[in-house]
């Protein structure tokens, strides 16, 4: 039933498509990290309308499916004159979706910085940007890095969704290979195995990182 020769012959194609998956994951995560921080700032804004609107946006994005958002970005934006490649649309979709999760992570990290740190920095007459950059963020972010890592794995496992907006990442490649020979067992199983191996390795890495960060 399982054809090893076939499995070996399609391996290079799948590995190549896996690169796209990984590229999309990293670009998406980078975007999510930046946007997430901005959202976290906007939510803390003392100007009520900004924090309320940001809160509403975060809530909405978090509670609707990523797939629906991907379709929206890929099909609706061109109607407004913004043409996007599948990869760009996918990265934006992933980044936007996960930025809402990461903003909560940042928020938890920022809230965990003791009040005294704020007061000390204010007492020293530091400017607001200096308080954030050299006092608060260096203490807020390292403890939440493992949690961010978990979202990175989550995002990695969500990139197959980009196949729905015609990006030929690893799952889409497996489907194409499968439809050519009507042998779906090998390609799809191999994709599953690749995900299992990669996300297992990263979760072990995160566990190590967590243990290391906890030591201090």
């Amino acid at each position: 039933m399982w054809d090893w020769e076939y499995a070996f012959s399609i391996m290079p194609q799948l590995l190549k498509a896996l690169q796209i998956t990984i590229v999309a994951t990293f670009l998406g995560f980078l975007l999510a990290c930046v946007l997430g921080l901005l959202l976290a700032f906007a939510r803390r804004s003392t100007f009520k309308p900004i924090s309320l609107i940001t809160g509403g946006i975060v809530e909405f994005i978090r509670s609707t499916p990523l797939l629906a958002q991907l379709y929206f970005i890929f099909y609706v934006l061109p109607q407004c004159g913004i043409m996007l490649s599948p990869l760009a649309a996918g990265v934006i979709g992933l980044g936007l979706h996960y930025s809402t999760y990461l903003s909560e992570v940042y928020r938890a990290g920022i809230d965990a910085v003791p009040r005294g740190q704020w007061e000390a920095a204010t007492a020293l007459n530091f400017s607001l940007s200096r308080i954030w950059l050299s006092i608060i963020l260096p203490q807020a972010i390292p403890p939440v890095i493992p949690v961010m890592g978990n979202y990175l794995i989550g995002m990695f496992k969500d990139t197959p969704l980009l196949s729905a907006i015609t990006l030929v990442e690893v799952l889409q490649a497996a489907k194409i290979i499968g439809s050519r020979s009507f042998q779906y067992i090998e390609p799809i199983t191999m994709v599953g195995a690749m995900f299992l191996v990669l996300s297992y390795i990263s979760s072990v890495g995160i566990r190590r990182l967590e243990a290391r960060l906890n030591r201090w």
Partner: protein
Amino acid sequence: MSPPLDLLPALLPGVVVTLQLTVFSSILALIIAFVVGFGRLSKYGPVRVVSSAYVEFFRGTSLLVQLFWAYFVLPHFGLELAAMHAGVLVLGLNYGAYGSEVVRSSILAVPKSQTEAGIALNMTPTQIMHRIILPQAFLTMLPPFGNLLIELLKGTALVSLITLGDLMFMGAQLRVTTLRTTEVFSLVLIIYFIIAYPLILGVRTLESKFSKGRA
């Protein structure tokens, strides 16, 4: 621009399918969460190994890959699943794996002294579990279970890719037939939000309710 309410009737059958999927697969996920969660705490080594492997497997591979596997590969092994069955099965198995971690960690979070007190009162292990550990662990479990339920609801959108006619699928089809892309996809997003939001509010109420008696 008036709201595209004329599109609603075409989407409603999809909403029904989405809700059905959510209900059935969350029931399955709940059952699996408890079975596997207890399995991981079992004193028998093999049971622990098997349930850990199950959790690692379903959490480690992508939900969409699992759906594709169930729908495209299982028929080659002579197991033909209807799209609905494949969807319920995979969603249940996948979120059950996440749920089992909730069950496990909540049980472990009950202080050890509670078990010791039970032993001191000469209760059987079953009694200790039923009367002392579970009632306390239950409260800790509820909010994370609520969050998982919301995740599951969002996860159901993926079944549209294995041709099951849920809300997302109906939306994609309606886009093709009416070409009113913006309206259709906005409506789909809003409907998902309307379904999810009461759940979110519920989870938040639970959370604040249970954190009150503690701390």
